[in-house]
């Protein structure tokens, strides 16, 4: 029963994506919406991502300093481990989970409200492919903007970690900087950013799916919004594992 339900949901999601990925009726209208969505979904998330990243960078550096305190471990490892944690997981996966909460619930409730107030029916009656018109700009905007947020988070997180070094005496700024610069592999940045492109697609499409098929009243819209966040979070974590295996070929 449970499996059947999951399979039918996946089937319905695929059919919706089939409708989403078709040619927009008017290029100019699409471009305008794309810019709007970049502002709504991306630009408006810069603040929260920056704040969380700076504090997480500082906390990660502190935790590393506390837990790597041993005469056998060089101090520069603190900076190195902080950088690796931020690049490998925090700035892509954890930021994606934060965005799933912020952006995912926003998308599901916006589209869900449009559904129950018949705005989607209005589009359909006009002869507009509502799924394409409403969802495609969100997906493309997120796939373009979220990787930029990931790169910003990497930089801001490292700055947060570096800043905390000046307030504690467990390591020196020079040690931390040495760690930050040691054995730097640009491929890892590429890995983090690429993961975010996939996560951006998952967050926007899964949330839009729940909003698009919302029915009933405002309570149901709230429920689909919650479900959108829960489902996109789970799918992001599953794909995090799959992509990690693929990228590192283990």
């Amino acid at each position, binding site marked *: 029963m449970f499996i059947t339900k999951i399979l039918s949901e996946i089937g319905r999601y695929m059919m919706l994506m089939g409708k989403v990925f078709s040619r927009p009726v008017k290029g100019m209208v699409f471009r305008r919406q794309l810019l709007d969505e970049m502002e709504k979904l991306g630009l408006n998330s810069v603040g929260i991502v920056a704040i969380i990243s700076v504090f997480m960078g500082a906390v990660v550096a502190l935790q590393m300093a506390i837990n790597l305190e041993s005469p056998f471990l060089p101090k520069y490892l603190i900076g190195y481990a902080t950088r690796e944690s931020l690049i490998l997981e925090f700035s892509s996966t954890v930021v994606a989970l934060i965005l799933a909460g912020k952006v995912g619930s926003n998308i599901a409730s916006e589209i869900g409200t449009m559904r129950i107030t018949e705005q989607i029916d209005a589009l359909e009656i006009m*002869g507009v492919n509502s799924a394409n018109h409403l969802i495609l700009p969100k997906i493309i905007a997120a796939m373009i903007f979220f990787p930029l947020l990931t790169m910003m988070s990497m930089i801001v997180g490292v700055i947060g970690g570096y800043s905390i070094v000046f307030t504690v005496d467990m390591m020196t700024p020079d040690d931390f900087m040495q760690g930050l610069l040691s054995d730097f592999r640009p491929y890892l940045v590429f890995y983090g950013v690429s993961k975010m492109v996939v996560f951006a697609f998952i967050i926007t499409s899964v949330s839009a799916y729940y909003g698009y098929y919302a029915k009933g009243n405002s309570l149901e819209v709230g429920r689909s919004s919650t479900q959108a966040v829960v489902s996109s979070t789970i799918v992001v974590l599953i794909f995090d594992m799959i992509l990690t295996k693929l990228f590192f070929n283990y």
Partner: protein
Amino acid sequence: MIKAENISKHFDDHIVLDNVSATFETGKTNLIIGQSGSGKTVLLKSLLGLHQIDEGRIFYDDVCYSSLGFNEKKEIRKQVGMLFQGGALFDSLTVVDNVKFPLDVFTDYSESEKLDIVHDTLKKVRLDKAYDLYPSEISGGMVKRVSIARAIVMKPRYLFCDEPNSGLDPLTSVVIDNLIKEVTEEYGITTIINTHDMNSVMEIGETVTFIYQGKMWWRGSKDDILSSDNKELNDFVFASAMAKRARQNM
């Protein structure tokens, strides 16, 4: 002309439309009346193709609409205007942008040409202010007028109205009814209005189709209603105390 031929529709085990046949004439205001839950909204949505009918056929002039594919239906829908019960205006767009939306999507007019058409249409529905306000900032009557303007801005051949007077005071209701009638006559379009407002019926009901328990129960003009001996129709029409008193005085 729009024609329904023996259409049936059920949801789960519940038959909502049972072998309904009706013809809605061009250049006339065709009303569908009936109690709440009688199936009139399902009939309207079935005529529009928003509900897939189980049996029967629907014709738009000579074209069998119910047998068309998605893309062919889209072409017909470009000739359809719809006034929704709640207006279904797009929350994120201003009054002008809501009315301009179909022009943006389906025409290649310049911005100034589009604005001219929008302003003319808004004047036609007697709206000469609030152009830059959002739907949440205007009154219910204005929402209906904007919705009519959006429905007719592309000069449709078919106009559908779902409970156009719901939530409006009697004076505004008369204004909206007369607007719909005026537009129908001026453009020579097929207008179908779904209502349970007897004032509308007596004001603009050129042809009236009474739906009772999912069946086409009675058909005639507003003048025929008063002389009909159909019990269910009379129970519906003369349900209010005022109507009963008026009938006694006839």
